[in-house]
């Protein structure tokens, strides 16, 4: 045993030294093989930078009215023009990324956690429990997504937290289905059988052997799901049941009182929608490319909008 540890420790520094170039090389290879995926990655990165650096990137605060600048066309001062309340559209679009990123990432983190628990337990325990869980997932998935969320939001009331909760419950159903499938195939492996033969406890098998091997699938499903969540958030905000004002959300910017002014100030309609489309496009492209590279078996097992 001691010799084994020694052997590993002599190898370790060498691997450490190679770690960074290897990651960089893998990234380069990904960019060359999947140029559209890399484009998606760049779009996602831009969105993250906009969300994190909003106070520095935006020219004004999102709800600040600029005196005498009502419905001005795009110019050097107002890159995306101004709206009917004299607010700078560029600043609002930049701050809007915050809502999308917050809702998107928290929802996906939460739903992946739920989907992991449900999917892996369903695959591991099997039998009647699996049957029952899968029937519930079936029923849940046969609801149109907007109907569930609208109904949930009607019961819970609008607000950021409620929005995140209802979206994550919704997304977790279809992710749970895919993760269950992945977990089932992982459990076919001989190392699970040998772990069991060694008397390893159930919890340990699940946490140490099943979960890490399902991770790649979970990450792919999450990336593709992110685009869908951002689309759903903007749809709900458009309907007035998403993030309440004054927080600027891309969906809400296309709705409400501004709609009657859009024919005179089309930039009010163009830029928020463009921001949603580019963000969702970025996540879809990145997710697709990740799936092709990491796990080609998943091709055609559509979850979320990217099918």
């Amino acid at each position, binding site marked *: 045993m001691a010799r084994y540890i020694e052997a590993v420790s002599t190898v370790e520094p060498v691997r450490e030294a190679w770690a960074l170039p290897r990651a960089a090389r893998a990234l380069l290879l990904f960019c060359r093989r999947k140029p559209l995926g890399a484009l998606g990655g760049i779009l996602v990165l831009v969105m993250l930078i906009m969300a994190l650096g909003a106070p520095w990137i935006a020219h004004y605060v999102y709800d600040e009215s600029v005196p005498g600048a009502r419905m001005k066309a795009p110019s050097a001062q107002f890159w995306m023009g101004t709206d009917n309340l004299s607010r700078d559209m560029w600043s609002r679009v930049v701050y809007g990324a915050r809502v999308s990123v917050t809702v998107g990432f928290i929802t996906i983190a939460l739903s992946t956690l739920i989907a992991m628990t449900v999917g892996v337990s369903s695959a591991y325990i099997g039998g009647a429990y699996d049957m029952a869980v899968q*029937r519930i997932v079936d029923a849940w998935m046969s*609801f149109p997504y*907007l109907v569930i969320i609208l109904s949930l939001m009607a019961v819970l009331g609008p607000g950021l937290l409620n929005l995140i909760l209802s979206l994550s419950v919704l997304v977790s159903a279809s992710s749970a289905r895919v993760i269950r499938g992945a977990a089932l195939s992982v459990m076919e492996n001989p190392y699970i059988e040998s772990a069991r033969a060694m008397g390893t406890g159930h919890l340990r098998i699940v946490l140490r052997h099943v979960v890490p091997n399902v991770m790649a699938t979970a990450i792919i499903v999450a990336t593709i799901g992110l685009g869908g969540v951002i689309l759903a958030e903007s749809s709900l905000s458009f309907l007035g049941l998403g993030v309440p004002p004054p927080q600027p959300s891309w969906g809400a910017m296309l709705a409400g009182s501004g709609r009657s002014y859009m024919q005179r100030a089309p930039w009010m309609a163009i830029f928020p929608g463009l921001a949603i489309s580019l963000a969702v496009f970025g996540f879809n492209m990145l997710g697709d490319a990740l799936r092709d590279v990491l796990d080609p078996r998943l091709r055609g097992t*559509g979850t979320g909008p990217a099918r």
Partner: protein
Amino acid sequence: MLRRYLLKRLVVAIPSLVIASLIVFTLPRLLPGDAVQLMMEEKAYGKDVDDLRHKLGLDRPIYIQYFAWVGNILRGDLGESLWTKRTVAEELGMRLPITLLLGGLAICFAIIIAIPIGVLSAVRADTMRDYVARSAAIVGLSVPSFWIATLVIVLPAIWWGWTPHLGFTEFSKSPVAHVLQFLLPALILGIASAAGVMRLTRAMLLEVLRQDYVRTAWAKGLREGVVVLKHSLKNALIPVVTILGIQLAQIFSGTVIIESIFQLPGMGRFLFDAINQRDYPVIQGINLLVVSIIVMMNLLVDLLYAVLDPRIRYS
């Protein structure tokens, strides 16, 4: 064999429906007590809290409520709208045809757009045309329908001073205008589904084109059109039929937004209004109807699948 398969599918569909009905039933019952109070104060439904609870059937033990509710549904009684005081069944009867027409047209548009492009993309796989088609499909999945709808209303007004007509024309007033008013909203609704259908068509056709019998067809010297359209496409389209069931759920989600923008008095807009007015019997009724339609359509799609592909029945 087909009959046994039919029976098996029916037996599986029933628990799905029961669970769906439980979800529909439970949602309004998650209402905390003060929400009932709020409904009464805001919307003046009922005389007092107890009266409203009685109307919503919240004053009886939960299992009795469920069975009574299911019993009423089986007799066609979905309750009464708190807002319009008409029966939910009557309200839904007026609106269902509009949404069915809109959704049906959207599916048709999706198929007309998606299948030719999917076929072309698969036949010319990994060429420039294929890349363009695939990227366009992802764009189609990424662009929100409410944005396209907004642009369709805003941009022509600026360019040509023309706007698509918003509002609803009855069939009895002008049958042509009645049908025409659905075309634009249906096309916008169909775009997202078209993207999904196109991607699946391409993937499935590529798989079929690799098979031996297709190589035989080529070897016989058949023309490309015959090999692709007659020999391959038929088999490739079988899985495409199944996702049309899933697309249906998505299209209904879309109608909530599109009907609101184009001011069509269908089920989607009715649901949205009911949610804003906290009209729970209506919300419950719509949810149940929509889920039942979707479960039924999925069943139908599965049966169609078995008829189209004899291999399914034996597995």
